[in-house]
C-alpha cells in the first residue's frame, strides 16, 4: 500500500507541474492571440469598414468595440471575460461568440473522433508491421507511403477522394451536411469522406513513431535477454517489446491533435461542415476578430488538455516516472 501511495503522490506532483506549465503556455498563447487579433491589424474599425469608409464612422465603430481603450485594459477585459465563458460579441453576427464556438467545437470533435478511431489502431498496426519487417519492401512501403501521406495537403487528398468516391463512384456524399435529425450512423456515413484526408496526414505520423519505437525496442538489450531466455516470439513481442515501444507513441498521438485541428480548417471548408475550423475560416475572411481569437484560444485549450491526458497516461504506464528511484 505504501508503494501504491507513493506512486499516486509522484503522479500527482508530476501532474500539478504539468498543469502549471500548461497554464503558462495558455497565458502566453492568449497574449499572442490578443496581439494578432487586436494590435497587429492596427486600426480594426478601418479594417472592417474598408478604406473608403468615413473616418468618423471608423472612430465610432472603434469606440463601440472598446478599441480606443489602453491595450492592457482591453486584454484584461477580454481574458477575464473569456475565462468566465464570455467570449465577446461577434462583429459580424452581432451576437455572443460562445454559442458559435461551442457548437462548432462539438461538430469538430465528432469529425476528429471518426478520424482518430480509424487512424490510431491502423497507424500503430502499420508501424508495428513495418518494424517487424525492417528494411523489407513492406516496411519501405509503409514508411515512405506514410511519410508521403503526411505532407500531402488535406485539400489535395480531399479533392482526389471527392472525385473518386463522391463523383466517379458515387459511394459517399461530397458534402458533410446531413439531413436534420439524422441518426449517429448516418452522421458517421457523412463524415467518412472528410475524415479520410485527416486519416492520411495522421497515419504517417503515428505509424512512423510506432515504427521507430518498435525498432528501438527490438534492438534493445532487454529484448535480446528475452529472446535468449527462450521465450516464444509472441511472448517477447507482447510482453517485452510492445509496452516499451509504444509509450512514446502516446505522446505523439496527443500532440497530433494540434495538427488535426489545423487540418480541420481546410477539410471543414472543403466539405462545408460547420466545425471550429470553418468557423475560424469564416471569421478570418470576414475579419471577425472576436470569433477568430476565441476559436484559436479554444483550440489551444483543447491541445493543452490533450497533451495533459497524454502525459498522465505516460506517467501511469512508465514506472520510471511513477516510482522514481528510491536509492
Amino acid at each position, binding site marked *: 500500500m505504501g508503494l501504491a501511495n507513493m506512486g499516486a503522490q509522484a503522479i500527482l506532483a508530476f501532474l500539478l507541474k504539468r498543469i502549471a506549465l500548461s497554464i503558462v503556455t495558455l497565458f502566453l498563447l492568449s497574449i499572442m492571440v490578443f496581439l494578432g487579433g487586436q494590435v497587429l*491589424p492596427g486600426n480594426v474599425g478601418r479594417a472592417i469598414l474598408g478604406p473608403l469608409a468615413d473616418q468618423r464612422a471608423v472612430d465610432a465603430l472603434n469606440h463601440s468595440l472598446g478599441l480606443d481603450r489602453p491595450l492592457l485594459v482591453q486584454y484584461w477585459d477580454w481574458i477575464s471575460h473569456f475565462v468566465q465563458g464570455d467570449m465577446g460579441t461577434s462583429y459580424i453576427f452581432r451576437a455572443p461568440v460562445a454559442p458559435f464556438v461551442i457548437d462548432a467545437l462539438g461538430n469538430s470533435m465528432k469529425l476528429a473522433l471518426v478520424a482518430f478511431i480509424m487512424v490510431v489502431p491502423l497507424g500503430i498496426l502499420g508501424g508495428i508491421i513495418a518494424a517487424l519487417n525492417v528494411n523489407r519492401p513492406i516496411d519501405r512501403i509503409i514508411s*515512405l507511403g506514410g511519410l508521403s501521406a503526411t505532407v500531402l495537403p488535406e485539400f489535395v487528398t480531399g479533392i482526389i477522394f471527392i472525385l473518386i468516391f463522391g463523383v466517379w463512384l458515387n459511394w459517399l456524399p461530397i458534402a458533410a451536411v446531413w439531413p436534420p435529425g439524422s441518426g449517429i450512423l448516418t452522421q458517421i456515413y457523412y463524415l467518412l469522406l472528410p475524415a479520410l484526408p485527416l486519416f492520411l496526414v495522421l497515419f504517417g505520423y503515428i505509424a512512423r513513431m510506432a515504427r521507430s519505437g518498435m525498432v528501438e525496442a527490438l534492438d534493445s538489450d532487454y529484448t535480446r535477454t528475452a529472446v535468449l531466455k527462450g521465450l516464444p516470439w509472441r511472448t517477447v513481442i507482447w510482453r517485452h517489446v510492445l509496452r516499451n515501444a509504444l509509450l512514446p507513441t502516446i505522446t505523439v498521438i496527443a500532440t497530433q491533435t494540434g495538427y488535426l485541428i489545423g487540418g480541420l480548417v481546410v477539410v471543414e471548408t472543403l466539405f462545408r461542415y460547420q466545425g471550429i475550423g470553418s468557423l475560424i475560416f469564416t471569421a*478570418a475572411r470576414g475579419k471577425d476578430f472576436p470569433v477568430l481569437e476565441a476559436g484559436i484560444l479554444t483550440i489551444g485549450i483543447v491541445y493543452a488538455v490533450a497533451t495533459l491526458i497524454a502525459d498522465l497516461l505516460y506517467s501511469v504506464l512508465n514506472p520510471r516516472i511513477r516510482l522514481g528511484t528510491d536509492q
Partner: protein
Amino acid sequence: MTATDIKQPDLPASASRRSPAMEVVAALGRSGSFLPGLVIVLFWVACALFGEYFTPHDPLADDIINALMPPSADNWFGTDQLGRDVFSRVIVGSRDILTVAPLATLLATIAGTTLGLFTGYFRGLVDDVISRILEAFMAIPVVIVALLAIVALGTSKTTVIIVIGLSFAPIIARTVRSAVLSERELDYVAAAQLRRESALHTMFVEILPNVIPPILVETTVRLGYAIFAVATLSFMGFGIQPPSPDWGLSISSNYGMIGGGFWWTVLFDALAIASLVIGVNLVADGVQVALND
C-alpha cells in the same frame, strides 16, 4: 634522456577512409528514395524557370467561349471556367510556390537554428522563457497561426514567407536545441571553456558544425511542409493571389464546380501539388537515411 631515445612506435593513421562528404553522397545514391525525389523536384524547378517557353497556350489568357472544355487534343488537360488552358497553367503553376516555400524554409532555418543554439547553449532562464514561448506557438497548428497573422497583416507574398518562416522556426529550434543540449555535454565544449572562448565562438564555431546533419534533415522535411502550408493558404485565399496560375489557387477557384463533373479543372493541379510534396519528401527521406548512417 628519455623521450627521444626510445624507439618510436610506428603511427600510421588508421585505415584512411573516404572523406565524410563523399560517404554522404554515396549513401544518398544508395538510399533509393533520394534520386527519384530529386528528379521530380528538378522537373518542377525546370518548369518554373523555363515552362513559359514551352506552354502550348498563354496560361493567363481568358477564352470564355471555350470555358470548361474537357481534355482534348488542343487542350490536353481541358480548360477552366475562364477558358484558360489547364495544361499550360499546371506547367507554370509551380513558380510562386517554389519561391515562397523555399524562402520561408530558409528563414525558418536561420531563425530556428539561432534560437536553438542560444536556448540549448545557455540553458537556464533564457532557455526556460524562450522554450515556453515557443511551446505556446506550437500549441496552435501552423496553418491557423498563419491565418491569424495574415489576416492581421494583410496578404502578400512577403507576409506569407515571413509568417510561415516564423511559424516553422520554433520547430527547427526545438530540433537544434535538443541536438545542442547533447553536444554541450561533450568535453570539447568544456575544453573550449578552458580556453575561454567566447560564447559566440563556442556556439557557432565549435557546436554548430556538429549539429548541421539534424538541421539539414529538418530543413528538407520542413520544405515539404512549407509547400503544404503555402498551398493550403493559397487554397483558402490567404496565400498567393490571383491572377497567378498557382495550383492551390486554381483548385480554390474551381472546386466549387466539382459536383458538376468538371474534374479536370482541379485534378491535375492536385496531382501536381501531390507530386511536388512527395518529391521533396523523398529527397528528405534520402537525406535522413544518408546522414543517420
